[in-house]
C-alpha cells in the first residue's frame, strides 16, 4: 500500500535551500460527515506531521480537519550534510507512519 510520495532532491550543494514535498494517503475524515446510516463518521485525521534531517527537527505541523484528504505539504530546508530526511505522521487512531529519503550533499 502506497502510504506516501516524498520528493527530496537526491543531491544538493552544501548551503543550498532545497524544497521538500510530501503527499500522504489518508482520508482525513473530519468527524462532521454522516455515513450512509445517517450516523456521524468518527473523526480520523493525521493530527501531527514531523520532518527530521539526520535526527534534528526541521519542520512540523499540528493539523485539523480543514486539511484536505490525502494531505500535501511543501517546505524548505538548507542542505547541511549527507544523510537521511525522515517523515513521521500520526493519525487519530494512533497509527504512526515513517518514510525516509536519502540526500547526498557535496
Amino acid at each position, binding site marked *: 500500500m502506497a502510504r506516501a*510520495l516524498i520528493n527530496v532532491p537526491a543531491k544538493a550543494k552544501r548551503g543550498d535551500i532545497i524544497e521538500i514535498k510530501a*503527499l500522504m494517503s489518508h482520508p482525513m475524515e473530519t468527524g462532521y460527515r454522516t455515513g450512509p446510516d445517517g450516523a456521524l463518521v468518527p473523526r480520523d485525521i493525521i493530527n501531527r506531521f514531523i520532518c527530521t534531517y539526520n535526527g534534528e527537527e526541521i519542520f512540523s505541523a499540528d493539523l485539523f480537519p480543514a486539511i*484536505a*484528504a490525502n494531505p500535501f505539504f511543501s517546505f524548505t530546508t538548507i542542505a547541511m550534510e549527507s544523510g537521511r530526511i525522515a517523515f513521521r505522521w500520526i493519525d487519530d487512531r494512533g497509527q504512526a507512519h515513517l518514510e525516509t529519503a536519502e540526500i547526498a550533499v557535496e
Partner: protein
Amino acid sequence: MNRVLKGFAQAAWFGGALSLAIPLALAESPLPERKSGFEFMSPESQATQQDDFSNPGMLWVAEGEALWNAKAGATGRSCAGCHGDAAVSMKGVAARYPVFFAESGRPIDLQSRINVCRKTNQDATPFPLESRELLALSAFLGKQSRGMPITTGEDKRLEPFRARGQELYEQRQGQLNFSCANCHDGNWGRKLASSVIPQSHPTGYPLYRLEWQSMGSLQRRLRNCMVGVRAEPYPYGSQEYVDLELFLMTRARGMPLETPAVRP
C-alpha cells in the same frame, strides 16, 4: 417554470439554458476543436495534475505498481510474472481501451479486463469494481500510456457497440429530460451552477476528482451525471457504461491520455 422543479432555481436555469441548445454531436469534430477537461480547469488544478509529487492520483499509481509486482491467487503469479516490465508491455494499452473481447463477443473496459486476467491467469478473486485495488491497477496501467494518443475503436467489430453508446449519449433521460449531448456538445464552455461544462472526452480516467477526495472510474463519473439529470444510474459494471465509454473514447481518438488526471 417547471412545476416539478419549483424551488430548484438552479435546475430551472439548467432547463432554460439548455432548451436553446442545438445538440450537434461532436463525433466528427476535427481535433483542434476538441478540448480536454484539463483546459477548463483553474491554473491551480492544472498545476496539481502536472506535478507528480502533488497529484494525489499518483498515490494510486504507486499502489498499482506494488500490486503489479505482488504475487496473487492460487497460482502465486504476479502481473509482472507474465507481463514483465509494465513500462514496456503495457505502453499504449490503456490508450486503446475499451477493446473487443472475443470471449464475450462484446467490448470490455480496462477494469474488467484486469479482473479477467486475475481470475483466469492468477486464479484470484476479482477485485470489486471501484475498489481501491482495481482503481490503483487501472491507474498504474493508464500511466504507462500517459501522453500517448488515444487509439480506441480501430476494431470493426466494435462498431455496433460504439453506435449503441452514441445512442445512449444522445438519448434524453431522467426527470430533467436531458441527454449527455445537451450539456456536453450543445453547451460546453458555459456554466452549470458555477462549474464550466467541459466537452466529454474521458482522457484521464481513472482520475482524482476533488469532489470525491479520491480516485474514481469513468463509470462513477457517468453516474454523477445521471444523478444530475435525476435519472436512475445503471448499476456498476453495466454494458451501457462500456458502450458509452467506447463511444466517448473513440470520439477522443488522437487526444493524449492524461491518466492520472485531476478534475474538480
